[in-house]
């Protein structure tokens, strides 16, 4: 469905995306993770045809993507995007006029559910509400690929929870590829099925959330007991406090010996260790 073939994007001397090769063959909710400046937004802009790749090819549904050939099947709106200072209802109606397959009923229903006052102008909305409106406008399009860039930026805990519900409802109504870039890993894991981690412009990992949940764990115990266990295991980080060690693993689970405990590694800790963990091997 989506393919990045050795794609590089440079801004002057800065390489934002470095020879990425990635295939997204099937529908699902994908969580795109990466530190600030890792290349997430560039990845999305490239896929949407908003910017041109420096090298390599991107295809969506078999068609090559570029700014002159923006894919009809991809819908992307940048986070914190500027909008016309129109009423919420007018923005939704205008988006419906501009986009084929825009579900105006869904957008208006979601706006009502999230208490977006349809009479308020865009500039009168809070930061979180602006983000919500952009997210609703993006999700209301029935294109086969939806890209959401930091869709929960500025949301409070309740709104973030509601967003997950909105995401799942939208997906069940129109199953498709939804790629969500976020920093709130554990929250999006409630909705997402697969994980793509980008670091320094490269894809570090593409795996199912369940697979990560199964393979990411921590072995804790006395260092002299834990250290020998790490041979042959993919250790993504270690924390040592005196004679006690916690080793973070991304590998098949092992049966820990006596004196060593095996605990599930949260997605957040897994992410921290895999992109910036000390003692990566």
């Amino acid at each position, binding site marked *: 469905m989506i393919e990045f073939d050795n794609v590089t994007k440079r801004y002057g001397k800065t390489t934002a995306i470095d020879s990425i090769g990635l295939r997204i063959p099937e529908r699902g909710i994908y969580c795109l993770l990466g530190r600030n400046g890792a290349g997430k937004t560039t990845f999305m802009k490239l896929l949407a045809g908003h910017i*041109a790749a420096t090298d390599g090819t991107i295809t969506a549904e078999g068609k090559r993507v570029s700014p002159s050939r923006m894919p009809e099947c991809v819908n992307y709106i*940048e986070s914190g995007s500027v*909008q016309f200072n129109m009423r919420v209802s007018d923005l939704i109606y*205008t988006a419906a*006029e*501009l986009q084929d397959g825009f579900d105006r009923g869904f957008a208006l229903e979601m706006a009502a559910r999230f208490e977006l006052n349809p009479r308020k102008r865009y500039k009168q909305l809070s930061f979180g509400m602006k983000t919500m409106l952009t997210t609703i*406008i993006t999700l209301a399009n029935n294109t086969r690929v939806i890209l959401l860039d930091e869709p929960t930026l500025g949301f409070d805990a309740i709104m973030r929870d509601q967003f997950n519900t909105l995401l799942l409802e939208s997906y069940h109504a129109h199953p498709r590829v939804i790629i969500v870039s976020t920093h709130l890993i554990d929250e999006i894991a409630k909705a997402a099925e697969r994980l793509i981690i980008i670091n320094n412009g490269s894809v570090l990992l593409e795996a199912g959330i369940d697979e990560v949940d199964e393979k990411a764990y921590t072995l804790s115990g006395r260092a002299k007991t834990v250290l020998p266990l790490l041979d042959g295991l993919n250790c993504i980080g270690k924390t040592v406090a005196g004679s006690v060690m916690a080793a973070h693993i991304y590998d098949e689970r092992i049966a820990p010996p006596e004196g060593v405990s095996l605990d599930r590694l949260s997605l957040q800790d897994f992410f921290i260790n895999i992109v910036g963990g000390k003692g990566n091997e």
Partner: protein
Amino acid sequence: MNKRVWAIAKLNLKNIKTAYFVTGLLLVTMIVQIVIDVVLAMKGHYLGDNSGISIGWFFWVAVALAAVLIPARNFKRVANLGGKRDGFRRGGFTVYAVLSGATALASTVVYYALDRTMFQSGKYGYMLSAPDVFGWASYGAIAVFFQQFAFLLLFAMFVHTLTSIQDKWYGWAADIAIVAIISVFTPIAPLRAVLAAFFRTILFSSPPLQIGVCLILTAALYALNKLIYARKAI
């Protein structure tokens, strides 16, 4: 016309309020001045030596500002509502055609209703108007409208194109080239003649030639915009 192109045109027309505001302000200022002149003339003051510029010119400001605001401000906003590049290009052209038509019509009406009837008597002074300056009036009212329309459309497309490339190196190169052409061509007689011939053709020539050349250049700029917008980052 494509439904989406018209939707983008409407969106652009609604969202160039700065252009309407500035034009409106200038028009109000001019109207106030005319009212004062009329009152003074009615009280016996001699205004025959006064000269000013016609209200008709001020409508041109709306076209010029729209051609800056649409590419500079509205392009990203249209894209953020799901508008496509090609729709934006075509929608923008539709706006310039509508605004150029409306401006040419308003300016023609002002010329015949105000400039020619009121000011050519000399009682209130003299008004410098585009149809007189460029000689369009000598071909009749229809020529005044269409010659003005063709020139304004070309002018709008030129400003739109130049504004659209300001975020690229070739935009700056184009700015420098324009300044260089004017400053180098003006003092050198043979080159000045070329520059003068160009402006004579697009402004002062007979209606078929002037309208034809303006529309051909507009079409060329429109085609150039296809290349520009195919590469423009959102």
